[in-house]
């Protein structure tokens, strides 16, 4: 793979300069730090046998040891303060390796990546997910593996994170709305989960179902979309080396508003293909009916490959705005498959991309 061969570029050099320091971000908002951290440390030891196991360490108290789980605001505080001011601590992930993916890209600021989100389960405004997701609990978490597999089973988020070494991959993300970001994800190839799931010969597609907990996801109470959110990939797309199950970004545990605890990342497709907070992975023999395709069949297709030559009824797809570029930066040209043709183009060689948009 060409991208891997860019070994002359050292990704660590690029990373350090572009990351917004935590203090800068945190000082902007009047966070109320919650003392009662709901830590679930018990399950940590169970699957620690593998040598490449990645650790999550508490970002606040360094040296506190191995902690698995997210902190939750204490109950008393939940009623006393606006949800926007509940402080969800950020936690570092250690033990992941850097890769050459996207090493030459300028990263989108952490602040923008985590406050400008399309995640309708938390509201339809881009600012909603960061504000409304503070009550969402991404730990403990288990994913149900079903359908055309040898044996249906579940996998906990901790087990999942040990299926393969965690990698940092810097990917471009192109939204169907005509904007884009560059995000340093941390995750593992979906292929490793597919292998673990042992699909049968009948498995032609994978269907991903997202969480739909109306008690912690206020947007899911509105019938804006047909909940739960469902996405899908063809088997070859799912096992393509580019396809990532992301569990973190910017060296930290995935924030709730970005799809915690685990989300799909397919950088050559429009962003809505990236199912968030996955609770179910079902192997099927027919093409799944995905949420956006159901909601607007003429606007959103199953494939949703980034394609500057196929326009959307609402948005220009031949160019895009890079988030964080500023008021006067103008647009940049959108690339076929978002610039990942070399990695994914061969999968669509015989497909009419105008018809199968």
């Amino acid at each position: 793979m060409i991208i891997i061969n860019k070994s002359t570029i050292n990704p660590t050099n690029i990373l350090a300069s572009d990351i917004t320091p935590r203090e800068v971000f945190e000082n902007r908002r009047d966070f109320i730090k919650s003392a009662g951290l709901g830590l679930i440390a018990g399950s940590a030891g169970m699957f620690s046998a593998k040598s490449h196991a990645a650790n999550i360490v508490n970002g606040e108290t360094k040296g506190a040891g191995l902690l698995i789980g997210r902190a939750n605001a204490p109950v008393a505080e939940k009623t006393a303060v606006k949800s926007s001011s509940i402080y969800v601590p950020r936690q570092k992930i250690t033990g992941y390796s850097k890769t050459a993916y996207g090493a030459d890209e300028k990263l989108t600021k952490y602040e923008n990546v985590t406050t400008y989100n399309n995640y309708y389960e938390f509201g339809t405004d881009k600012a909603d997910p960061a504000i409304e997701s503070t009550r969402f609990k991404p730990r403990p978490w288990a994913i149900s593996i079903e359908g055309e597999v040898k044996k249906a089973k579940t996998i906990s988020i901790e087990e999942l994170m040990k299926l393969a070494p965690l990698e940092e991959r810097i990917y471009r993300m192109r939204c169907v709305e005509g904007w884009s970001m560059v995000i340093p994800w941390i995750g593992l190839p979906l292929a490793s989960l597919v292998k673990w799931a042992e699909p049968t010969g009948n498995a032609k597609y994978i269907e991903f179902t997202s969480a739909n907990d109306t008690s912690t996801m206020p947007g899911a109470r509105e019938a804006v979309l047909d909940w739960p959110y469902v996405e899908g990939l063809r088997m070859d797309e799912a096992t393509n080396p580019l396809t990532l199950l992301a569990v973190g970004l910017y060296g930290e545990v995935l924030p709730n508003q970005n799809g915690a605890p685990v989300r799909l990342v397919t950088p050559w497709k429009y962003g809505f293909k990236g199912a968030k907070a996955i609770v179910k992975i079902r192997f099927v023999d027919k093409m799944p009916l995905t949420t956006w395709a159901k909601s607007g069949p003429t606007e959103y297709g199953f494939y949703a490959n980034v394609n500057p030559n196929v326009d959307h009824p609402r948005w220009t797809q031949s160019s895009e705005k890079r988030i964080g570029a500023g008021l006067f930066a103008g647009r940049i040209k959108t690339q076929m498959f978002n610039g990942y043709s070399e990695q994914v183009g061969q999968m669509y060689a015989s497909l009419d991309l105008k018809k199968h948009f």
Partner: protein
Amino acid sequence: MNKQQTVYVKAAIWLFALMPLARLIWLGVNEDLGANPVEFVERSTGTWTLVILLTTLSMTPIRLLTGQVWQIQLRRLLGLFMFFYACLHIATYVWLDYSFVWVDITKDIIKHPYVIVGFSAFLLTIPLAATSNSYLIKRLKSNWKKLHQIVYLIAILGVLHFWWLVKKDVTEPIYYAAVLALLLGVRLYFKQKSAHKMQLKPQSA
């Protein structure tokens, strides 16, 4: 309302109508326009165009319902502020969003229904703004009134522009559509009432 009061009200309109622009400039200078500043300015100027348009259109229904006539003097000022924000909106689109790349702008307008209706609405506001001075109002006489009835079409296109732009959650456009329907409904109601009176007149005479 006497002359003095009219001056005060007009001054207040100037003040309020320039506040959204002042806010945008303030946020822009402080680099506080969010992750997608161009979209922010586009949305903001578009929203205020619609709000001021609906405010302008509410002057006549207020007259019809209250019997007072003073608000009619404010219509032109409000209408021109609507045109001002529409111009800012278009300038944002042409300059900040598309950097004057006319090929892309043309394609965007032709290909996307929400852009077509929005752009048409803007084009239609130009003759209205151009004929808003006292000289032409007098000169055009009854034709002026006919011409300025285009504002209803502009309002419908403007709300449609917002409606079609929204991806899924049409809650906000619905509010604007409801207000517009109400404002047009009041006019229609009074028009029918007066037409009814006219019909009755010969009989009662």
